Structure formats: C-alpha cells, structure tokens
C-alpha cells in the first residue's frame, strides 16, 4: 500500500530549479532512502512535503489525504513527522519536556483543560509521560531524562529528535541526515534502532549522504539528481546502476579531485 505519494513536484528559487517535476512513492512499512549529490534537491523535496516550503507545482498525498497545501503543524498532526538536518531540539527543556511538547498525545485536550489541569489533561499527560519514558529508553538516553537538553552531545541530540517523533505515533517519519556528524562507531547502532522502530510499524523516509548507511538499511532507494528522480529500486540494483554511479559517484570523485587540487 502506498503511504506517501508525490506527483509532479516542482520548486524553483529565483529561477533556479531545485526540484523539477519529481514523482515517487513511499510504501507502507518500508524504510525508503533518498540519496543524491549535494544540491540535488533532497532537502527542498522534504521541506515541500512537510509544508516548510510551498511547492510551485505538484500534489502530495499521505494515505488518501491531500496534504499539499497544509501548513507544517497540520501535516504533523496528520501523522507525518520529521527531523532537521542541523539538529533541532529545545535546548532549555529537559529531555522529558522535549518529548512532552509534541502535541499528538494531547490532541483532544483544550486550552482550558490545560490551564485548569482538568482530568482530560491529566489523563493525556500521564499517558504522554509514559510514552516519553519508553521513547527515551528506546534511544538509550534514560540516564539523562531529567537533564537539560543543552548538555547533550550532537549525536545524543539527534537521538532525542528521533525519540520526539515517536511521541506522535507517526504514520511516516522523514529523517534529514540522521547520521551526519554522528560518531562513526554509533552509525550501526542507529541503523539497528531504526530497523527496530520500523518493525513495530513506523515507515521511514531517510535522506542521507552516507550511501553505505542507506543501502544497508533501506528496502527501497530513490536517487535524485539536479532536482529530478534519476533512478529508484532495491539497494542492490541502485548500487550497480550505471547512471547512478556515473552521476552520483562520478561527481563525488570530481569533487574529491577538486578539493584535493585546492589543497
């Protein structure tokens, strides 16, 4: 079953086409990878999907709902959560507060319920706290649950951001570079963690630079180049696809040569 369907997505900034007429699907229950060289339109694509950018053209459907014109908060409430490339968390909150900020567990609670601490709020809060405890246990930050998030390391912050998405019981989570800047020895742990969350029913769309991480983890891989979908398929076929090797790896090698030449 198709969970997310992108049809004809286009976005340009001042005449530069970041994404051009791109269409793809994310199937329910999969871990789908989205790779591509720098500037291929990956981040623009997910910003458009999650409502942080307004697409120039194209439709986006989550299950059978058109989410193309919704603002980010409504998309989140529809069950599509995301993380950010440069990690975003609430530095002034402790870990528990970071997770309790997510609205999903409080969907039926009104402002008055919150202000007067009515029963409906207390119920929701109790359940949310339990869920937050589980999410923090899952990502292995239990020891720090009452600590201010500001003291976390970069990798720990990424784990916290991931745990926050778990609060919403999401249909789909989009991760923007979950292992960039993370200690290489921890990358496999994160892959294992994502597999575990996936097995319990969460679908992932993961944007990454780390091709090895993606091809090891994903069921299905999408390759973007210059704003277009260049190829898609199983990791094995992608790894041997001539166009991908040419466009993606060729460019990387070119870039390596360039930077080596500069030094």
């Amino acid at each position, binding site marked *: 079953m198709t969970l997310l369907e992108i049809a004809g997505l286009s976005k340009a900034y001042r005449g530069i086409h970041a994404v051009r007429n791109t269409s793809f699907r994310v199937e329910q229950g999969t871990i789908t990878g989205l790779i591509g060289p720098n500037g291929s339109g990956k981040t623009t694509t997910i910003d458009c999907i*999650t409502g*942080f950018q307004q697409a120039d053209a194209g439709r986006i459907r989550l299950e059978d709902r058109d989410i193309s014109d919704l*603002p*980010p*908060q409504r998309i*989140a*409430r529809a069950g599509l*959560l*995301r993380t*950010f490339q440069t990690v*975003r*968390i*609430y*530095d*002034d*909150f402790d870990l528990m*507060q970071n997770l*309790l*900020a*997510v*609205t*999903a567990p*409080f969907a039926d*609670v009104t*402002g008055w319920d*919150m*202000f007067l*601490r009515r029963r409906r*709020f207390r119920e929701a*809060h109790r359940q949310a706290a339990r869920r937050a405890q589980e999410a923090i246990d899952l990502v292995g930050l239990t020891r*720090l649950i009452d*600590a*201010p998030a*500001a*003291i976390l390391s970069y990798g720990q912050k990424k784990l916290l951001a991931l745990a*926050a998405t778990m*609060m*919403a019981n999401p249909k789909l989570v989009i991760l923007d570079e979950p292992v960039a800047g993370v200690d290489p020895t921890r990358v496999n742990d994160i892959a294992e963690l994502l597999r575990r969350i996936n097995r319990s029913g969460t679908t992932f769309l993961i944007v990454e630079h780390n091709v090895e991480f993606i091809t090891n983890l994903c069921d299905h891989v999408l390759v973007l180049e210059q704003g277009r979908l260049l190829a898609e398929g199983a990791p094995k076929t992608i790894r041997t696809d001539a166009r991908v090797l040419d466009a993606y790896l060729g460019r990387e090698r070119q870039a390596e040569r360039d930077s080596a030449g500069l030094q």
Partner: protein
Amino acid sequence: MRVAGLTALALAALAILPLFVHSNYVLSIAISGFIFVVCAAALNLIYGFAGLLSFAQLGFWGIGGYAAAIAVVDGKLGFAASVMFAALLAAVIALVTGFPILRTNRHAFVIVTLTFALLCALVARDWISVTRGPLGIPSLPVPTFFGFAFASPTRFYYLAFAFAVLALGILYALVTSRIGLLLKAIKQNEALARSQGISPMPYKLFAFVLGAALTGMAGGIYVFHLRIVDPTFLDFYYMQTFLIFVVLGGAGSFWGVVIAGALMVALPEALRFTNDLRMVIYGFVLVVAMLVMPRGIAGVFHDRRLNALRAKLA
C-alpha cells in the same frame, strides 16, 4: 515546597505591612510596586515566554488608564465595571491588532509595537473631545467596591495587593501549565514546534491578548491611585520600568521577574534617589544586565546548574 513556603511568607509580610508602616509615601511606593510587577509579569508572558519584544504594552497600559477614567467620569460606571471595561477594551484592541502584527518578522514586530504605543500617546494628546487632550481627566472619584470606599492609602494598598495576587496567580498558573511549555517551545524553536504539530499563532495571540488585558486592567487601577489621567500616563518611562524588571529578573522566569520587580521598586526608594537618578540607574542596570547576564538573574542560576551537570557527566 520551598517556593510555596517562601511565597506564603512574603504574602503574609505584605499583608501585615500597613499595620507597621503608616507613611503614605511608603504605601504609595508599594502600590506602584504591585501594579508595575503585574505589568512586568504580563510583559514577561509576551517577551519571556512567547519571545515577542512588545512595546505595545505601554499602549495597553494607556488604553486601560484612559478607558477606566472615561468610563467612570463620562460613562458613570462604578469602579469595578470601569476597570473591567479597561481590561476588555485593551484585550479587544490587542485581538484586532495582534493578528496582523504577529504575522510580521521580529524586526518589524518591535518597530510596529513601538509605533502602536506612540500612536496611543498621540491619540491621548490629540483626540481632545474624548481624552480632554493635554490637560487630561483630573479628580477621578475614590474607588468604591460594593459600597466600600478605598479612600485611604492603606485601603488602596490592599486593593492593589489583592489585584497583584490575583493577576500574578493567574499568570503563574498559566506559565506553569502546558500552555507555558508550548509558548516556550515556540520561542525556542518555532520551526521545530510547528514540525511537532504546534500552531504558533493561537498561542502567541493568546499571550498577546491576555498580556494586554492584564496591563490594561493594571493601568485602569493605577489611574485611581493617581486620581488623574493625562498624556504623561503614556510616558516611555513606564515601559522602561516594566522592561527593566523583566530583563533583570530574566525573561521567561516567573519568579525572577517578580523578585527583580520587588528589588527594583524597593532599592532606589530606600536610597532616596530622585526620579531622574533612579532612571539612570535603571539604564545602567539594563546595559550591564544585557552584557553580563543576558538572561537575567534566573539565567545566571540556570547556567550554573548546566555547568555543574556538564562537569558531573564529563
């Protein structure tokens, strides 16, 4: 628990203060203190929690003051009804203006709210048929509530005290509720908050309107203390006073602001500075606080705790 105990102690001390202090001067300072701390706490809701540096508070203060005075003099309303009218009018104006203002970016927000406050001052001065212009509305009646006249400074002290306790109580309940948490989340990282399903606008608008209502109400009560309202009621001095309490206490810290307010009212008075010299000191405090401890007294404690934790974990 310790906070509850200290609060109870402070409340008890303030409740019996007029039994020992008979100086009208001191009582008058205390009355101003109560009113200003409420305004600072309301500004703290908007700036400290919602992250919006709003100079419009001065406008709402003036709107409240004029609304109450006009309601009681021209409208022949009672004291309580006038003050409620002041709060309501400030809230309605905040609601109508808040939506377009809150859609701008933070540079524009500061400039527009500042201009709004200036406009209020100009309206007070120029809309002579309603506000009496530069002369203002003098000799306001003694406030009476259910037949009880708050005629003496001591009685007015208890009125201001009760208002402060009520208003601060509401604000405390609010900022410690989930609404306070969400406001702080929006302030810290609006994009993240939106990605987690939080709609910023209703919360910001709510903070803006409630802050306006409480400030308007405070202004409405304060004119009965002054017994006159004129365009100097919209002097920038009031805004500077509210701001200094918030900045010194630490934007976003309820207790920090209340304590800073109490200190800043009491200290310069105790030292018997003239008004000008007090404002110079406020200015110095503002500059130094912004350079040395940009998050106020509360921020200093917060940073200490963070460093201690980091040391422990390292």
